[in-house]
């Protein structure tokens, strides 16, 4: 209530008039009332009423904040956060080695960035995640929907069909082995058509369309409240050309990062971004580093770097607040993103399904 007039989100011209008239705190404004206000600073009664409503909304929000209720800023103890994190699901990647180094899979409410050279498998992982987020809860998934924002045009529907078919097949095998009622019921809705209908695809051709789409995302997500994954495939591509003013680029990227963090937290969804690699010319040698510069590195909570080692694809967990840095190998098979060897502990369902995972890399390479 003692909030200064200058900090209220009113129109600048109105703020200037209030300051000139001598108003200092929000309480003074509320005490004056709309008619008094309109007479003192020379605006219409309707405008004065609107301004007072804004002031009241702000002060109410402030009061709620200081009382500890949910508002623009959250306040809770670490114990509450721990309980929340433990009940939160992960989006599995079907590559158990990758899931292990991530601590269970791609985390909700966090931004995960995947960097890599062209052709190493970033879009493949994104498509795999767009399918995996829809796995029903009884099979260990989060039963959500996915938003796929494509800036490079590398989204191939046929590939998503293959990945989804393999995922449905996998779940069918688990259901057959375990013979539980809720598995069968979940499988009725977990079909190819349903999976594809719940991937919402946006094709952004330049950075303006991308900015516009991210501004509209909160509204979209409140209409589609089951979305648990937002993928932006190619955050670097639209920002790497036509930018003479680099400070503008940094500002836009920072704004984008902030909006994505808000979206991830408010809607309890995971945000996955893919980035390109660029060459940094050093003194004696050049190295490949993620594109978009140093300050962009702070935007993502978790950073994965995909790279090649001869003909083996490797994934390195480069930045994570809770897991240690490590490197694992993965494969891209016709069924999607998979491990190099089958995991050591297998439950009975995987006995029949183990063939796709065991297919050696050389067969694929010969094709």
């Amino acid at each position, binding site marked *: 209530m003692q909030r200064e007039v200058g900090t209220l*989100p009113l*129109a*600048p011209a*109105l703020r200037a008039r209030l300051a000139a008239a001598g108003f200092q705190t929000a309480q003074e404004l509320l005490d004056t009332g709309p008619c008094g206000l309109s007479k003192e600073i020379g605006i219409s009664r309707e405008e004065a009423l609107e301004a007072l409503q*804004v002031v009241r909304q702000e002060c109410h929000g402030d009061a709620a904040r200081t009382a500890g209720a949910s508002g623009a800023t959250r306040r809770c103890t670490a114990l509450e956060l721990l309980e929340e994190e433990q009940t939160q699901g992960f989006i599995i990647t079907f590559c158990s080695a990758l899931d292990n180094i991530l601590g269970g899979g791609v985390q909700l409410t966090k931004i995960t960035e995947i960097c890599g*050279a*062209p052709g190493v498998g970033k879009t493949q992982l994104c498509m795999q995640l*767009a399918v995996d987020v829809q796995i029903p809860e009884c099979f260990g998934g989060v039963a959500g929907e996915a938003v796929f924002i494509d800036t*490079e*045009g*590398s989204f191939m*529907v*046929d590939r*998503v*069909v293959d990945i989804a078919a393999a995922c449905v097949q996998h779940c069918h095998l688990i259901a057959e082995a375990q013979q539980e009622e809720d598995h069968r019921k979940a499988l009725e809705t977990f079909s190819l*058509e349903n*999976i*594809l*209908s*719940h*991937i*919402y*695809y*946006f*094709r*952004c*051709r*330049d*950075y*303006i*369309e991308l*900015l*516009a*789409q991210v*501004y*509209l995302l909160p*509204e*979209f997500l409140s209409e589609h409240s089951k979305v648990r994954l937002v993928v932006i495939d190619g955050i670097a*591509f*639209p920002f*790497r*050309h*036509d930018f003479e003013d*680099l400070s*503008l680029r940094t*500002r836009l990227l920072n*704004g984008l990062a902030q909006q994505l963090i808000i979206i991830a937290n408010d809607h309890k969804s995971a945000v996955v971004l893919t980035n*390109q690699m*660029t*060459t*940094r*010319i050093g003194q004696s*040698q*050049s190295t*490949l580093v993620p*594109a978009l*510069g140093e300050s962009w590195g702070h935007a993502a909570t978790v950073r994965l770097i995909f*790279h*090649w080692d001869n003909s083996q694809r490797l994934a390195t967990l480069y930045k994570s607040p809770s897991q240690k840095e490590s490197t694992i190998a993965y494969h891209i098979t016709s069924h999607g993103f998979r491990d190099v060897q089958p995991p050591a502990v297998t439950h009975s369902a995987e006995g029949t399904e183990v063939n796709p995972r065991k297919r050696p890399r050389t067969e694929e390479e010969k*094709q």
Partner: protein
Amino acid sequence: MAAKKLRRAQLSQEMCERLSRYQITTCQDFLCLSLLELMKVTGQSYYEVQKLLCKVSRACAPKMQTAYEMKLRKSVNPSSAFLSTTLHSLDRVLHGGVPCGSLTEITSPPGCGKTQFCIMVSVLATLPVSMGGLDGAVMYIDTESAFSAERLIEIAANRFPTYFDSDEKLFCMTRSIHLYRELTCCSVLKRIMSLEEEIISKKVKLIIIDSVASVVRKEFDTKIQGNLAERSNFLTRGASVLKYLAEEFSIPVILTNQITTSLSSGPAIQADLVSPADDLSLSE
């Protein structure tokens, strides 16, 4: 989309006039400003400005489609999804042929047959759909002056002798292959930008650029500082226009590239010359 004028974005007349006084006339100018700047420029409160932002964003944002709708659209017209190369093993590996709606890159050391492949695919594109072609014209952008019309006729006559049985048919085919000789990066980019109208007027069904690497290597010496950034700027700009054309008209685009040496000492250094990932990391 970015250059869309604000008055077409459903903003009120007086708002547009007020913004034009600050030189903000397009959606791009509007969306590049921060919220505080927008408040100052529009003279509105925070919540009003957010509503304006949503309005302008709605004018620029792409349309939503589900993956299911995309699949249905593809399955309605399966034959138009690929251009078969008539090489059965290659078609099998590519799951049908050169895909329509995306860019395909062909790369090899010199003398392996890239230009020959491009010439053959040009002939294939002019064939009627019943024979596996696209029944359309071809835009051939040649930067190395390697295209030979005689070779084109030789390939057509020997590969499809029953179809090209008369001179009339051969000339009809050659008339629908439009050749452009461009020798600098600037002219290549200008040509790519002008393609949209030509595609509609000439009913083009295939774009070939042979080759991207030769102009780029001629003009951009990567040892000179600043050239790497310029080069990647040129390449990404060309790439995004080509992607747009490929997707908008659902046609295949074929690019050829050259081979260079990858120096692998220490951490992975891929000196692939025409990779758009090469970019000088600019300090901030």
